[in-house]
C-alpha cells in the first residue's frame, strides 16, 4: 500500500467490495431502510411470515455472506445509544454489530448521532485494549470540549496515547496523555491563531474532517478508523474500516504531518512515544 497523502486520501482508500443488505420480516422496517439507504449498499427486503421481532437482516460483501443482525437490534441502528464508550448501553447495543458488517461501505449522509455512535465503538475498542494510539479529529476543538470527560477517563484508566485534532477555536486544558494538534506550526496549542500553517491546507483538512482511528495497540484485529466529511446541514459522508494496514497508513500520515510526540499538551513533558 502506498502512503496515505491526506485525510481525504485516507477516506478515498476505504473502499470495500460491493455490499448487499437483505432484510427479512413481515414487512419492510421503513426506519431501518431509511437508515440503510444512506449507505452505498444494494438493499432488498424479503417477506417472511413471522412476527416483526423474529425478522433479521443479512449482509453480503463481494457476493460472500458476512453475517446477520436480529430485528430487535434495528432500533439501535436507527437511533444509536449516546452514552460513554464504556457504558453498558453502548457495549450491549447492536449498533456495533451492524457497523462491523457495514465497514467499507460508504455512507452518503449520516447525522452526528450515528457518527458519534461509530466513534464510541472505536473509542471503546481502544479502552478495552488499553494500549496503543487513538487519533480523534473533531473539526474544531470546541467540539472536543463536550468529549473532554470521556477522553480524560480514556487516558486516566489506560496506557493509551491520545492525539486530538481540530482548529483552534477553544483551548483545552492540559491533559496528561492527550496531545492536541491544531494544524499550525510551532506551539500547536498556543491558541494565538496567528501561527502560519506548516503546510497550506493542513489546518483546513482538520477543520473539514471528522475522524477517529485506533491502531489496535498490538492487536491488529482491533484496528479501526472512521473518516467523514461534512456535506451540509450536519450531515456527513464517509466510511469506516477495520483494515489494519489502512489504519496503520492513516496513523502514519497523521503522525508525520502533525507530530507524534505529546510535548505540547502533556503536563508531563517526558518523552513518551508510543
Amino acid at each position, binding site marked *: 500500500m502506498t502512503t496515505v497523502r491526506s485525510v481525504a486520501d485516507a477516506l478515498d482508500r476505504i473502499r470495500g467490495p460491493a455490499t448487499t443488505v*437483505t432484510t427479512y420480516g413481515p414487512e419492510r422496517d421503513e426506519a431501518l431502510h431509511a437508515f440503510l439507504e444512506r449507505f452505498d449498499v444494494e438493499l432488498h427486503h424479503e417477506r417472511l*411470515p413471522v412476527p416483526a*421481532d*423474529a425478522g*433479521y437482516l443479512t449482509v*453480503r460483501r463481494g457476493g460472500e*455472506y458476512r453475517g446477520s*443482525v436480529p*430485528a*430487535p437490534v434495528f432500533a439501535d441502528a436507527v437511533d444509536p445509544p449516546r452514552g460513554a464508550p464504556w457504558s453498558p448501553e453502548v457495549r450491549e447495543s447492536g449498533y456495533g454489530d451492524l457497523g462491523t458488517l457495514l465497514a467499507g461501505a460508504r455512507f452518503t449522509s449520516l447525522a452526528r448521532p450515528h457518527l458519534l455512535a461509530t466513534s464510541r465503538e472505536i473509542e471503546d475498542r481502544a479502552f478495552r485494549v488499553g494500549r496503543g494510539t487513538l487519533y480523534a479529529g473533531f473539526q474544531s476543538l470546541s467540539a472536543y470540549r463536550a468529549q473532554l470527560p470521556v477522553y480524560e477517563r480514556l487516558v486516566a484508566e489506560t496506557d493509551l496515547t491520545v492525539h486530538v485534532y481540530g482548529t483552534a477555536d477553544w483551548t483545552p486544558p492540559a491533559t496528561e496523555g492527550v496531545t492536541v494538534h491544531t494544524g499550525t506550526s510551532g506551539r500547536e496549542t498556543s491558541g494565538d491563531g496567528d501561527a502560519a500553517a506548516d503546510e497550506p491546507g493542513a489546518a483546513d483538512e482538520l477543520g473539514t474532517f471528522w475522524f477517529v482511528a485506533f491502531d489496535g495497540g498490538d492487536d491488529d484485529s482491533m484496528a479501526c478508523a472512521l473518516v467523514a466529511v461534512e456535506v451540509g446541514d450536519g450531515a456527513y459522508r464517509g466510511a469506516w474500516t477495520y483494515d489494519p494496514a489502512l489504519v496503520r497508513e492513516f496513523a502514519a500520515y497523521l503522525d508525520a504531518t502533525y507530530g507524534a510526540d505529546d510535548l505540547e499538551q502533556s503536563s508531563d513533558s517526558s518523552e513518551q512515544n508510543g
Partner: protein
Amino acid sequence: MTQQDTLSDLFRTLSHPHRRVVLYYLRAHETASLDGLAECVTGWTESGAGTETGGDAGGYETVRIQLHHVHLPMLTGAGFVTYDVASGDVTLRDLPRVAETVLSTAASVDAGDGELDVDALAASAGE
C-alpha cells in the same frame, strides 16, 4: 401407504428447521435460488427469534451444502418443491392441506411467537 405412514412422512419431511424455513420462505415467494435460500436460512438460524440457543447454522457454506445435498432433495422427494440442480432454482408445489396447517402452526413456534397448537394439528390430521 396408510394414513399413519403419510403422517409419519410428513413429520419426517418437516422435522428439520432448515426445511421448514425453506418452506416458510417459499410460501411467501413461490420461487427462490439455492443461494437465496441459503442466505435466508443462515440468517434465520443465526439471528431469527426462536433461536435463543444462539443458533448454530454452521455458516453459510455449510447451510448451502446441506440444502443442496440433503434438504432440497428431501423436499423434492416429498413432492413439496421442484429443485433444478443446474440452475439452482427452487419452486414451491401445491402442498397437502395438512402440511399447510402444520407449517402455519410451526412458523409461529419457530419464530418464538407461539405455543404448539396440538388441537389444531390433530383436527387437521384427522380430516
